[in-house]
């Protein structure tokens, strides 16, 4: 249940690996850390690895979309990697697949980005 977040910049891309249940608590942390990184550096694409995520609600969806809006203006993309089957319906219901790109792995995502 414990949420962890790892962030790394790879070239001009921000790669974030998340684990656990992503709700308003994780949303606030994600928003804070990603906005801080985006403030400090010009980053292009945001790659979010959801492989070890067990739950996600609309609070976290809002944080994802908020960060997408921020990078989208500069031509950046929100890229999802490893979305678990249990979480897909929530992302679909929110229309997230209209705006995100998906790759099976981080290396594929970074190669394609």
């Amino acid at each position, binding site marked *: 249940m414990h949420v962890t977040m790892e962030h790394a910049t790879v070239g001009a891309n921000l790669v974030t690996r998340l684990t656990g*249940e992503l*709700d*308003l608590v994780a949303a606030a942390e994600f928003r804070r850390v990603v906005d801080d990184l985006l403030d400090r550096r010009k980053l292009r694409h945001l790659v979010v690895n959801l492989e070890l995520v067990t739950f996600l*609600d609309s609070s976290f969806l*809002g944080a994802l*979309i*908020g960060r997408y809006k921020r990078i989208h203006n500069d031509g950046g993309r929100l890229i999802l990697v490893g979305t678990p089957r*249990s979480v897909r319906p929530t992302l679909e*219901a*929110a229309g997230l697949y209209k705006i995100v790109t998906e790759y099976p792995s981080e290396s594929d995502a970074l190669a394609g980005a």
Partner: protein
Amino acid sequence: MQQNRVVAELASVPQNVGVARLLVAMVAAQADFTVAEVDEIKLAVSEAVTNAVIHGYSGQPDQTVRVEVSLANNHLEVVVADEGRGIDDITLAMQPAVSSDPDRMGLGFCFMESHMDSLEVESSPGRGTRVRMTKKAGSERMARATGS
């Protein structure tokens, strides 16, 4: 056939949204819900309790959100209640993408409605909000089997 009832009074802090999910999931697990159905119940509860914390109490941490979950005959009922500011227009608030905060999606009620068998919202300005949701174990499998 399991019968159970758990009542929790949770401080209106964000961390307790996860506590509510766990609590309701553990009661739901005593019935014949599938894993996917328990996930749906968790999502609905997460949305309802988040609404109470963020909207009902505007993020004040020293208030109380009451979560009551009861189980009888594979029928789960969850009530999430707060004594916060209440909703001016429930019909409007339940429409997707209606939210006072630009970073939020206004999907809470949509998820509650689509993931539970029933959703009732009682609220008025200054008088708090009470959300009652129910789900019967096996209802989705029945619907699929009968093609309804």
